[in-house]
């Protein structure tokens, strides 16, 4: 419970920041733009006309849910990669702010255990990422649903996947912050993890291109642990576009990503427990 209280405290702090206000306004503006500018009625209109006249008027006509798949796919990729990038930049300061002189001493004087402080910060950022991703995707679903009559919840599930992916990145950022209290370094760690996640996605092909040696072994070792973000993004896209997914693959990916985040958090807690303030 204490960790959740810390998380809520972080959310209050985030609400006061202009970054998140700007994000909320930008997403709302984008959704309003879609509401006013998209002319998707034509899709189902043509389909209805085909049914009315008993034969297709145009063989290139697609059902609205099929026609919308690329839109949902593109939106999921935007939410996934855009969310990762925005999250790394906007959340890099939460860890250093928690550990800032004066504040950390005050927090440690309260009946809060150290691991609860870190877990609460992590959960707060995760909730923030989840809220942003779900707001964007749910808004898109509502806009497109109202326009075309196609209602699907999968883009929202796909957005949750993006938030989980960001969770693994933020765990690394938090772990780095516990060692060195620097927002820049925290952001750099996040960016590095995104790059490593991309490299891990194409691990097999890249290993094929490398000659045997310590460099290859190091690359193989690091990329064996980091979640393959590209695969997660593909899975998020497939979910959003109602495309088929390999059975069991997504569950394993998600579990692996959560385990990776848990490992980094455990390292952060281990260091935090030993550190004097």
């Amino acid at each position: 419970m204490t960790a959740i209280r810390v998380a809520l405290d972080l959310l209050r702090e985030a609400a006061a920041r202009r970054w998140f206000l700007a994000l909320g306004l930008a997403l709302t503006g984008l959704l309003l733009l879609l509401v006013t500018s998209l002319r998707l009625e034509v899709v189902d209109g043509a389909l209805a006309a085909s049914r009315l006249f008993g034969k297709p008027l145009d063989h290139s006509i697609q059902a609205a849910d099929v026609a919308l798949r690329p839109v949902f796919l593109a939106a999921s990729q935007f939410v996934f990669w855009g969310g990762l990038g925005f999250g790394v930049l906007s959340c890099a300061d939460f860890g250093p702010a928690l550990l800032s002189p004066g504040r950390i001493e005050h927090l440690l004087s309260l009946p809060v255990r150290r691991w609860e402080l870190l877990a609460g910060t992590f959960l707060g950022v995760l909730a923030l990422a989840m809220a942003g991703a779900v707001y964007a995707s749910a808004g898109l679903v509502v806009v497109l649903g109202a326009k075309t009559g196609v209602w699907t919840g999968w883009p929202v599930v796909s957005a949750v996947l993006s938030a989980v992916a960001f969770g693994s990145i933020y765990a690394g950022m938090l772990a780095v912050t516990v060692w060195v209290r620097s927002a820049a370094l925290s952001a750099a760690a996040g960016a590095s993890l995104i790059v490593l996640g991309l490299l891990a996605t194409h691990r097999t092909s890249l290993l094929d291109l490398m000659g045997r040696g310590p460099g290859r072994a190091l690359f193989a070792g690091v990329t064996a642990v980091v979640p393959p973000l590209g695969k997660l993004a593909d899975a998020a896209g497939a979910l959003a576009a109602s495309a088929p997914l390999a059975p069991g693959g997504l569950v394993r990916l998600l579990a692996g990503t959560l385990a990776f985040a848990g490992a980094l958090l455990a390292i952060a807690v281990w260091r935090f427990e030993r550190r004097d303030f």
Partner: protein
Amino acid sequence: MDRRWLWLLAAALLVIAAAWLVRIPETRAPLARPQVEMPRYLRPQERQRMLARLRPPVVDAGVQRTEVRDPMLTALSAGGAGSGVVLEVNALRNSPLGELLLQCLAAREGRGNALEALQRMGIDPLRDVDRVGITEHGIVVSGNFRRANWEGLLGSATGTAYGEHGQITAVDPRAEGGATLIATRWGDSLLHLGDSVEDGRRVLDAVEGRGPEPRPLLSPEQSYGELYGVVSAADLARTLGGSEPWAAALVEAASKVEVHLDARRDVALVADVSGEDARKLEDLGKTLGGALAVARAQARGQGDEDAAELLGFARVSPPHGSALSLEVALPLEAVAKRLAFCRGGADAGR
């Protein structure tokens, strides 16, 4: 234990779990590149085989030569060809790869195939044929043809005698057309099929030791592996053309390519590319290595795991002196998988 160390232990366990979970298993494990000995020299059995094949030349017109020669390789060199390949039919037939190929042939042609037709004429290709060599001047077949029904095979039991043991027979074209085939026999152990009597005479002269000795296409010391041969730069250029960058680089840098294939169990192929210009060879090595890596990555990117796996079995060794090597080591399982389409049976189409 200090409670704080439990966090580190938990982290270690979670890292292991993450590594296990995020690596979604492949639908099938890729085959490993087999650790096979590449054919680079005569193995003891091959040396014995090579020595057993050497014959002194036939005494002719009072000139006796002291050297011994392999009639088959001499026949291949007779026309002055720059390229030639020899298939050790008997050795290949008794290898796992040969078994697969035979199954393939039987499945495609049925038992009443060309092999049985030849058997009816006294030549069992699987038992009587030792080697088959191919050059631009024709095909040379060596083996034991004592029981051959030459009349059935060539249309005549005897031909025009030439030299000590030679006979040249012109085989008329079939009813459906084609050129006249010139079959040249040397005793009961060598048969040359070409398209001119001149070629036949050259083969017999070379084998019996008459006239100037032809420049050897392949020496007996090069007769290792179940398939071996050389390809000249001119033939290489004619074959490859140079449409691909690697092909253009190969044609430009190579003066000769020597090929040896070992199929005793896994299939190992060595192609030694020799050239005059060491720098061009170095460039060729890099081009070939790069082309292999790119092709492998492209195949994997396009989801063609079979092609990626095959390309993974090939590698280019750095140039040493005036030659570089392309080595391919294919596990027998990979070959069997590729031949499954023609063998039929349970594993076909896998």
